[in-house]
């Protein structure tokens, strides 16, 4: 009988999510009404709704007269063509055809670029399946284009499903993965590809849901914008988070139109994973670093992410494998835009985040990932990523940084050499947090690691946070935040979080004062108030191995590294995504 019930449960239809017809219509209405420049998704919404049609065609004229934006143009154009093909005027269809013949969009060099480029080519080669090589900007036939695009997409899905994403958990670029996947899941002709892309879309939503906290994309990020680094809800991915996981969208982005025009509905289990914060949980995810080209024997670093998610906060970080022979202690997952760790609070106020970084600014960082001349890149990088050379920046990883986390405790360790451009570490403390105590007894000559100054105790809503900077520092009021800047390059930020329901602020502060790190030889232990200490060996930081064997491990999701099968569970809900056999159940 029990088996019969289980069998029956397995074949129950998946409960529909919140992307009801009403929500879709509401989102489309908001997008149509919001003033915007020419945008394929907005034009699509207007043409489908039959609203503001003449203006929509004017905008489309602009988008087709001088195509611009490479692969970003491609996926938007493909999305428009496919989602409006029954209402799009024939002359515009012809003009779009001409664009794909003459416009020479560039492929780019990142994971999101490649998905947009090959995803768009696959869809459009299915629209025009029998054209010769003179009819495409690549000089290839429709069949050649389709085969190459499908080959790439299959390869990419296999890699991500088995070994993890490269541009992972980006509050900005997640948006540029979700939209092409929405289009592929909706419009791909090939049944197997369509299914795998639908599953991939779910996979990305699971990835987001596991680190979703009241609209925030928490945890470590491979790439984050300057703004989203200090304001977690300001990234583009928030729009999709709200659309798929919540019942209303306040952060509107144009591409939501493509999702609202599609038939895809987020499975209820993924919505539950995003919203069930009834009890704290640890979350492990494995990812890969961006492919290195110079100065590294590891092509793609192995990355393991840790999150400790509660209903009030999420403490998240990443560890990165390295195989270095020099004195550098760490490694980078991505250049320029990495956020290695953060503590994100669930509260509604802006700037609800706390984190530290070393503002690395180095030709070597650029040379490791980009083929151009390192010194020239360093000279011009300011024009591409304006904040990169800035000593006050709030985004970026560092090869002189190692982060260790054990649930609600985290240690960010820094050993910055004299040769580094900047030798300070900055800690971002949101002004929305109340500083309960600040034991600034540090002497100028205090040196990491055992002669510690004191703790700063913060309160953000019901979350208590102990912060200990393991070297002298200055604290500056910057309006929305405080900036703590260390005076030495060899330091650490020690973070411990609890909920006020667990202990009072006084008890928390008293317990903190009893904590002291212990160093025996090269081995270091940072104790915690819950008894789960952080241990690491200073001698092994340069050559750092990761032994984790699970791509996903939490109470909601599990997958063995390399298996290609993701198992989900949330209460009575279960789901499996088997990418090897292109099946889900």
């Amino acid at each position, binding site marked *: 009988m029990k088996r019969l019930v289980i069998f029956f449960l397995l074949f129950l239809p998946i409960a529909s999510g919140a992307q009801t017809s009403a929500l879709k219509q509401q989102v489309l209405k908001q997008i149509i009404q919001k003033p915007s420049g020419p945008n394929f998704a907005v034009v699509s919404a207007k043409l489908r709704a039959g609203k503001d049609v003449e203006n929509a065609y004017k905008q489309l004229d602009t988008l087709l007269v001088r195509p611009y934006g*490479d692969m970003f143009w491609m996926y938007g154009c493909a999305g428009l063509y496919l989602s409006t093909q029954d209402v799009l005027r024939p002359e515009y269809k012809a003009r779009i055809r001409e664009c794909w013949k003459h416009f*020479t969009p560039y*492929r*780019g*060099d990142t994971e999101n670029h490649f998905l947009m480029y090959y995803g768009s080519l696959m869809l459009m080669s299915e629209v025009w399946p029998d054209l010769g090589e003179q009819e495409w900007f690549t*000089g290839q036939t429709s069949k050649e284009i389709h085969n*190459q695009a499908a080959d790439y997409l299959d390869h990419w899905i296999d890699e991500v499903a088995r070994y993890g994403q490269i541009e992972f958990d980006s509050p900005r670029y997640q948006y540029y993965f979700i939209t092409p996947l929405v289009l592929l899941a909706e419009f791909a002709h090939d049944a197997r590809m369509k299914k795998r892309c639908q599953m991939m879309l779910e996979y990305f939503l699971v990835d987001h849901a596991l680190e979703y906290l009241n609209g925030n994309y928490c945890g470590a990020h491979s790439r984050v914008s300057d703004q989203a680094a200090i304001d977690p809800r300001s990234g583009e991915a928030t729009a999709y988070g709200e659309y798929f996981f919540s019942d209303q969208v306040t952060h509107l982005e144009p591409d939501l139109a493509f999702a609202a025009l599609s038939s895809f509905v987020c499975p209820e289990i993924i919505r539950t994973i995003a919203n069930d914060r009834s009890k704290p949980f640890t979350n492990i995810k494995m990812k890969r670093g961006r492919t290195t080209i*110079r100065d*590294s024997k590891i092509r793609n670093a192995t990355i393991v992410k840790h999150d400790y998610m509660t209903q009030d906060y999420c403490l998240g970080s990443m560890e990165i494998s390295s195989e270095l022979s020099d004195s550098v202690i760490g490694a980078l997952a991505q250049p320029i835009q990495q956020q290695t760790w953060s503590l994100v609070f669930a509260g509604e106020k802006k700037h609800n985040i706390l984190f530290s970084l070393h503002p690395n600014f180095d030709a070597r960082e650029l040379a490791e990932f*980009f083929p151009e001349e390192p010194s020239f890149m360093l000279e011009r990088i300011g024009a591409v990523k304006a904040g990169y050379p800035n000593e006050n920046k709030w985004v970026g990883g560092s090869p002189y940084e190692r982060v260790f986390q054990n649930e609600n405790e985290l240690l960010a360790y820094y050993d910055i050499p004299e040769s580094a451009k900047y030798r300070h570490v900055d800690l971002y403390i949101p002004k929305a947090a109340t500083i309960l105590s600040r034991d600034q007894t540090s002497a100028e000559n205090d040196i990491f690691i055992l002669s510690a100054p004191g703790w700063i105790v913060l309160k953000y809503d019901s979350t208590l946070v102990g912060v200990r900077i393991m070297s002298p520092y200055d604290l500056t009021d910057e309006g929305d935040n405080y900036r703590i800047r260390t005076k030495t390059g060899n330091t650490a930020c020690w973070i411990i979080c609890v909920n006020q329901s667990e202990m009072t602020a006084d008890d928390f502060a008293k317990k903190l004062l009893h904590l002291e790190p212990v160093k025996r030889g090269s081995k270091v232990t940072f104790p915690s108030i819950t008894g789960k200490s952080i241990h690491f060996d200073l001698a092994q930081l340069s050559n750092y191995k990761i032994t984790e064997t699970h791509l996903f491990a939490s109470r909601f999701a599990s997958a063995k590294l390399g298996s290609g099968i993701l198992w989900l569970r949330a209460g009575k809900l279960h789901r499996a995504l088997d990418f090897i056999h292109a099946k889900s159940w």
Partner: protein
Amino acid sequence: VRFESLRLSVLLLFLLLANMQAVAQHSHTRVFATAIANDSAGAFMGASSNGSGLYQSDDTGSTWRHLGWNNIKAYSMDAVRSSNGRILFLATGLGVLRSTDYGENWKVLTDWRISEVMDVAVNQKNPSEIYIATAHGPWRSRDGGVTWSELVRGLEVPFTSRIVIDSVVANHVLLVGDREIYMLKQDSIWYPVETNDKSSGWESTPVVDHFSSLSQISANHWIAAAENSLTLGSIDSGRIFYADRILWDSINPLWCLGVSSEYFESEKTSTIHIPRRVLAGGLSGYRTYANTSNDAMSQPELISSVKRVHACLLILDQSNGADYVSIVGTLGDGVFRRSEVQATKLLPKDRSNYVGDQSLQRCQIWSLKSFHIME
């Protein structure tokens, strides 16, 4: 009969020579410049920009025209010499492109596996064999670019930036890695070539800070350069490179060498040969050296008004009194040229001496190459 035969032979020889002269009179040097970006914000490091791509000049760099894709990160190019400029290969960020109609139309030959192609070399004895050096390692095609095989065995780090097929010795290919020059052996394995530094009187391995240039000067003579102003020469077809660091002081980092192969005749030391004329360029500018005797290299002024010189070319301009023309490609300021004979008059000091069309003016030039075109 013998006399008649002799007359006929002389006549045929005369006609042959006359024909060769006529051909020689109707040929010229075609120069190609490849631009990875137009110099606008965000226009490199992954992105493309209008104005990048391939440029061609048929008057030794005085005027230029753009060919093909106008927004592609073009690192380098090669041509099938026997096709007289008709068949071109372009090494780009998105792979290898081929044109069979003088650059008017292009076909992408590679797929997603191949990206950031920094150099392409066609085997001129067998043009269906093509080698490429990419930032992720070298590849080879033996069917004109239809299929490609990765050639990474022996490489410690995947980054490769230049690949040169020996124009004389068969199956001899040299590859520039980040800190090594490699030679292809056993068809598919790269071996680091021996490098030797005798400058201190002791044999030692020179410290190389990123190789930047590799050229074959003549049958046995090769010359390479590294960013830390190091020159390495080989007199045994690239099997051993000997270091020499006396030439390029104050050009740091050193990014390119332009050499005059025709005038290779001097011997600097017993282990390294220096071409008669050398153009050395880098971040701080460029110099053109004239070597008039074995031990007397000129010490010209550094032309620092043209900075970030990433590509160098020395061309013997036979139409202009056998004058040498220097063409330099910069990162961000397009292309400059000057006549070496009239150097003092034509020194490019600012943009007023800029050559090329508007779109080339702010390009990041990655390479310059020249080909002899018969008309």
